[in-house]
């Protein structure tokens, strides 16, 4: 059992709240027609998205999925620049060229979201190869969804990571669906982490809504990879509350299922933990929530006030 400092607990709760508010706000902007294109929300997945990132060490890297806001906030990205990117503004992380799906902060080790399901697996192998080659002692955390584990890329990457003992942790957020496809229709095994057996690497399935469990498991896996023992596959079972993207009518699932999962809401669960363990007073808890909320309000303001990119920027950034 890993000791959690108050400061860390604070950060956890703050980030998870920030992530929730970020997405709720973004959802609102989308329904008001203020966002070009679509967004993939991960409301309900805050523990599985934020906690693995908080288990990282300085200098570790992360590769994110198409559903990446929560992951990015967990990793420590600036919500102002994230929101600006979602709105296509020049002040965004990618100068408005990437949008919601492609937020990245490469210099600081965030290798970006990826619009190609499964696209991050082998990028992560490459990033991990660099760490191994340069003996940096750093690890790559690779996020993906349940659906992504059916891509050829998953298989090729896990095999490569295994035979080369690459320092990478593959973290699968199993939110029960690949778009509209329930996991039991696209995968014939109970636990996705059992796929680790095909590569002889450790595989763990955990409750993705339990912030503490996710944090502890991620920490152990990162330690294992950091020690040069090779990759680890983690499956965190969780649930997305919103539709897959803005056009999703969610005909493929029963409202009751959602309600059941909402009882296991990761924020609620953490709040209960904080209360039960009397780590913080009720007032302190509310204050953290409030600060998180305000940071998102400010992010929206920042983004909305930010300038559009100049047309001339179209031709920039193609080549280095």
């Amino acid at each position: 059992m890993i000791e959690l400092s108050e400061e860390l607990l604070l950060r956890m709760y703050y980030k998870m709240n920030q992530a929730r508010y970020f997405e709720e706000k973004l959802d609102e902007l989308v329904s008001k027609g203020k966002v070009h294109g679509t967004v993939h929300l991960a409301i309900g997945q805050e523990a599985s998205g934020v906690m693995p990132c908080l288990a990282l060490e300085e200098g570790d890297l992360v590769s994110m999925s198409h559903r990446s806001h929560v992951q990015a906030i967990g990793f420590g990205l600036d919500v102002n620049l994230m929101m600006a990117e979602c709105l296509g503004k020049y002040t965004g992380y990618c100068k408005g060229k990437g949008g919601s799906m492609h937020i990245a902060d490469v210099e600081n080790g965030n290798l970006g979201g990826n619009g190609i399901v499964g696209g991050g697996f082998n990028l992560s192998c490459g990033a991990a190869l660099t760490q191994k080659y340069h003996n940096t002692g750093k690890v790559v955390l690779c996020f993906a969804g349940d659906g992504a584990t059916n891509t050829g890329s998953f298989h090729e990457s896990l095999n490569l990571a295994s035979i080369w003992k690459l320092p990478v942790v593959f973290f699968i957020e199993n939110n029960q669906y690949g778009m509209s496809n329930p996991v039991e229709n696209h995968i014939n095994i109970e636990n996705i982490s059992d796929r680790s057996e095909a590569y002889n690497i450790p595989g763990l399935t955990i409750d993705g809504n339990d912030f503490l469990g996710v944090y502890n498991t991620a920490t152990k896996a990162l330690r294992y990879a950091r020690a040069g023992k090779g990759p680890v596959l983690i499956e965190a079972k969780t649930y997305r509350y919103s539709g897959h993207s803005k056009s999703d009518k969610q005909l493929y699932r029963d409202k009751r299922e959602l309600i059941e999962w909402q009882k296991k809401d990761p924020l609620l669960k953490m709040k209960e933990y904080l209360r039960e363990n009397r780590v913080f007073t009720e007032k302190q808890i509310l204050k953290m929530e409030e600060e998180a909320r305000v940071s998102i309000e400010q992010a929206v303001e920042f983004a909305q006030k930010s300038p559009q990119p100049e047309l001339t920027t179209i031709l920039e950034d193609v080549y280095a």
Partner: protein
Amino acid sequence: MMKTSDMIKMTYRDAIRLGITEEMRQDKDVIFLGEDIGTYGGAFGVSKGLLEEFGEERILDTPISEGAIVGTAVGAATTGLRPICEMMFMDFITLGMDALVNQGAKMRYLFGGQSQVPMVLRLPAGSGTGAAAQHSQSLEAWLCHVPGLKVVTPSSPAQAKGLIKAAIRDNNPVCFIEHKMLYDAVGLVPIDEDYILEIGKTIVERPGKDVTIVAYGTTLLKAIEAAEFLEEEGIKVEILNPLTLYPIEMQPIIDSVIKTGCLIVAHEAVKTGGLGGEIVARVVESEAFDYLTAPIIRLGGLDVPIPFNQELEAATVPQRNDFVHGVYRLLNRI
């Protein structure tokens, strides 16, 4: 000539679905596979309702495995089925290229004519949706460089129905490119169940005499808008639509250029290496060369990935005004 009474108004999306539905009703060997095409009805709603009518045996929701989708279709096609399959976005054909190019397109030739691969690969293409560089490409030029494939693309609901039916009935792998920004376009569509648009044809979309424009997809619609605008100034633009991009029928284009002496070739795909170059080359190789009265103008997407920001995105691909200015330039009006 079709009577309007034999037509109904519908969207491009619905017209594709109607074509598929009719073919699936009359040929039990037609099946349909892809991601989220069942209950969800497909990312762009094309397959909505098909699961209800045809059941899970014929409407197959697949895992996220583009290679397997295309490869399975190839294998099913060689053994007697007539699969339709869908890449959710054309951009994902990068993951199915081996199955398509090295297997589907070459199998018949490799085996000396022993097999045939009657399949349709549906490919929603193009920009305009704000989905950025990995979800906005127009990659038809790749496919038009692969002997063994056929490549078709409709620009109206009627064409969509006529071509999807022809594609399903064809005994070769046919890439069926749909432009995402056309799904909501409305038009009259023949109800005749034998309404087929023969593969391998280029049609005159709008007759004219002053300048020839060759375009397809949404770019064609922009060309038509430009032509309507120019008509008010007395300029008559002839617009040709290569419904089959590969193998392309050149004669109608050549004939038109002989008549007008001026040519604009346009597409949304990145200009360099796009199909426009091929068309230009074939025109100058043809008898039309001697009739050209001005340099050919080629419009295409800028040589960049498609950016997310809405204004940038729009500025990356040819628009109505590019046609207008092109025509002015050809006619020495600027």
